[in-house]
């Protein structure tokens, strides 16, 4: 290691703000992503930037980290004007970034991952030894314990994130940017992350936390800036604000943070899963012995950290994947590995499906909205097709109807699907699937990447459909969403069912432990005794 790294806090001028952005402006074509944005982040604080998807948060941090260069504006780091044209410039200026999706090589060890790009000269061994000593110092200093010789692929997600933080600190970061860091964590892992951020702050590291979750802002930040439609609309002390005010600043109008849930009288069983299994890519099971019954007029929530089998379960229920073992009964029809049904056959049983990934599966982005609005229903929607031929006028009228009923904007059936905002794309999918008045609706991540206004709308539509007599399976990694809407909640961990609990007995702590792999009957007694 030829370069000398400093891990001590402070630096040139502790009075100067760690980050000072002045009048940052950035356009992509006609999209004005950042308009005259100012930001001051005091050294040694945790500063949150909150805003909806598309508000310009990612663009702003991309400019700060050197992925994009601003059209105009000034960046000062610790009081020094910084000309950041590449990520290398950003790292040199003391900025580190932990991405939403980790940039790690799974089959390298922690140590190998951290020294990528800093291997030192010729002989790898010398570099590794020096790096190891230095890393231990950093890890002790910040209380970031992790086994340096473990294979990253074997580590849980929370620890992988810790590796990312270590990597940034190793490179001499005194400013740490975290982009939506809790998306892949259990509530408990998120808590651990927050305490790490706390200790970083104590050691003088400046943290910039980018998120769309109000709870995280309230939990961990000192100050917060709110972005809306490319502009900074407020800079606040976290202690002086509250979630409702922040939400209103984010979307520009008052909003209900949770919909009015009322209990409904459930009916008979419409779907029954009996020991469903699915082989994974390796010898392990992606799903193992999942059993549950689904009743008419209920929302059955499936909670779990992303990647624990819930996506595969939805695929099985929709017929996209075939069972490896077990038995699934929809209405009177039995589905087994020997007698699988195709997605269109399952659809014919009255099952509709709002897929997790609307970009790849739920919509065809280059299609017009009208064309996307008949995807999967080309034959069924009255007169969308006459014989072999599409009927453009009917398709347009059908789409216009859906757009009106579900408040999709702009209400233009001829507009390319890709040009709608995330929330409006999702409303289009929801409209299409609900308009068939399904007996069973499979819902995957209904509000991922959707703005708050649309979330409220979609949640109300799900409750309305349930009250109209449908059974709904709701898969979501947003725990609040599950807790808000579900009548019963099943938690999955590593493809196994950790137990099903009733709405009245569920709380975030209990579900969090189950998400981390504690079966419902082994939960600590003190847990969840609240009414």
């Amino acid at each position, binding site marked *: 290691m030829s370069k000398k790294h400093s891990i001590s806090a402070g630096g040139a001028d502790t009075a100067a703000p760690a980050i000072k952005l002045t009048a940052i402006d950035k356009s992509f*074509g006609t999209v004005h992503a950042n308009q005259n944005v100012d930001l001051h982040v005091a050294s040694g604080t945790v500063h949150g930037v909150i805003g909806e998807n598309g508000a310009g948060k990612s663009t702003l941090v991309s400019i700060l980290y050197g992925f994009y260069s601003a059209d105009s504006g000034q960046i000062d780091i610790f009081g020094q004007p910084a000309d950041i044209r590449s990520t290398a410039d950003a790292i040199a200026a003391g900025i580190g970034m932990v991405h939403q999706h980790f940039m790690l090589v799974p089959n390298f060890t922690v140590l190998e991952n951290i020294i990528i790009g800093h291997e030192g000269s010729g002989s790898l061994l010398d570099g590794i030894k020096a790096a190891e000593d230095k890393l231990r110092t950093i890890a002790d200093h910040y209380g970031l314990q992790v086994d340096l010789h473990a294979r990253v692929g074997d580590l849980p997600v929370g620890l992988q994130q810790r590796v990312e933080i270590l990597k940034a600190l190793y490179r001499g970061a005194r400013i740490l940017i975290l982009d939506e860091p809790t998306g892949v964590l259990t509530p408990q892992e998120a808590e651990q992350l927050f305490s790490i951020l706390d200790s970083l702050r104590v050691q003088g590291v400046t943290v910039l936390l980018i998120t769309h979750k109000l709870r995280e802002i309230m939990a961990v930040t000192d100050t917060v800036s709110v972005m809306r439609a490319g502009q900074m609309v407020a800079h606040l002390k976290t202690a002086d604000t509250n979630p409702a005010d922040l939400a209103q600043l984010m979307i520009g109008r008052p909003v209900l943070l949770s919909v009015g849930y009322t209990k409904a009288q459930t009916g008979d069983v419409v779907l029954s899963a009996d020991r469903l299994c699915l082989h994974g890519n390796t010898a392990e099971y992606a799903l193992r012995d999942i059993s549950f019954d689904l009743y008419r007029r209920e929302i059955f929530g499936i909670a779990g950290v992303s990647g624990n089998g819930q996506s595969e379960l939805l695929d099985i229920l*929709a017929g996209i994947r075939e069972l490896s073992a077990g038995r699934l009964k929809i209405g009177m029809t039995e589905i087994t590995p020997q007698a699988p049904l195709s*997605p269109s056959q399952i659809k014919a049983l009255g099952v509709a499906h709002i897929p997790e*990934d609307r970009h790849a599966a739920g919509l*065809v982005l280059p299609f017009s909205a009208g064309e996307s609005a008949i*995807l*999967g229903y*080309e034959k069924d929607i009255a007169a969308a097709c006459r014989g072999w031929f*599409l009927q453009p006028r009917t398709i347009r009228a059908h789409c216009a109807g859906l757009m009106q009923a579900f408040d999709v904007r702009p209400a233009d059936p001829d507009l390319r699907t890709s040009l709608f905002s995330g929330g409006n794309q999702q409303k289009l999918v929801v409209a299409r699937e609900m308009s068939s008045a399904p007996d069973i609706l499979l819902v995957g991540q209904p509000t991922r990447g959707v703005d708050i206004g649309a979330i409220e709308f979609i949640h109300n539509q799900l409750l309305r459909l349930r009250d109209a007599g449908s059974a709904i399976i709701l898969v979501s990694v947003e725990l609040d969403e599950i807790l808000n809407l579900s009548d019963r909640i099943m938690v999955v961990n590593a493809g196994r069912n950790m137990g099903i609990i009733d709405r009245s007995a569920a709380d975030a702590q209990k579900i969090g432990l189950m998400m981390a792999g504690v079966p419902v009957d082994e939960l600590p007694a003190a847990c969840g005794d609240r009414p």
Partner: protein
Amino acid sequence: MSRQPVPRWIDIGLLPLVNLLAAFAVAAIIIAVIGENPLQAMGVMIKGAFVYKGALGYTLYYTTNFIFTGLAVAVAFHARLFNIGGEGQAMMGGLGAGLTVLACDQILPAGLAVMLGIFAAALFGAFWGFVPGWLQARRGSHIVITTIMFNFIAASVMVWLLAGMLMAPNQMSPETRSFAEHVSLPKIHELAAGFGFEMVRTPLNLSFVIALAACIGVWVLIWRTRLGYIIRATGHSERAAVYAGHNPAHIIMIAMAISGALAGLMALNEILGVQERVILNFTAGYGFTGIAVALMGRNHPIGIVFASLLFGALYQGGAELDFEFQTITREMVLMIQGLIILFSGALAYLFKPAVERVWFRLKQ
């Protein structure tokens, strides 16, 4: 952050034009370097392609070939399949048309024999496209590799048959006997004469009209039928197609069969329209140029007609260029064609960022 797209006319109109101009600019420099006047050469080429007596007929005759092979590439491409086997599928189409007509031209009325020949051309071409489609769908063999292989197989089959059992008796060239008299697609000048118009004799025949009809057919198929909808959905996102309840394997096989059929129809122009017998190498690279045609025409029938017309004009005008200038040889003309393929095919999006930047600056 997604970029706001530029208006469609820029993508499908202006950009190909810019590519074309770039190709011509480079060609002009080269012509200037060898000591000729580029503008004069351009004039000769345009006259050769459109103005001289019969020139237009020849241009449209070449255009016909490009329309069929361009459409073939386009249909496959809507399912995101890169069919570069147009050459082989066209050969098979010619073989199918030839075998059918040879088998029945003595016994059936001429019109019926030709109709059967057309049908057989499409069928043989479809089969030659279907098999790589099947291999892709069921065995995961990449369509690019298999269609190239199938070009070689088709070429070998043609040599084997034409130098063997199909070779006409008592002659030395690898070709079949000629079809019986009048068993061919009528020439346009013959048809015009029937209506009392006097036209120059050219090889232009009824397959040009069939090619235009195929354009309409492909447009209807892709944008106005359920099958086309599913083909496009599969092409854009296979997961969306699966989600919607369609089997991508079936769509791949169907799209490749349709693509092959269109390439096979190229044989109408050459075999049933002009040669009136099966010869070797009648495809002459049209199948490959079809890729450039489809790319330049943005996989849309209207674009393909214009791109085909351009390449048709290049073929015909290029021949004139070769004839008029001593210094400009046949190879020189091939090079100009190559430049156009390079700029509008391989480098199709080279100028896109620049054009977009200019557009947004103008708009502001």
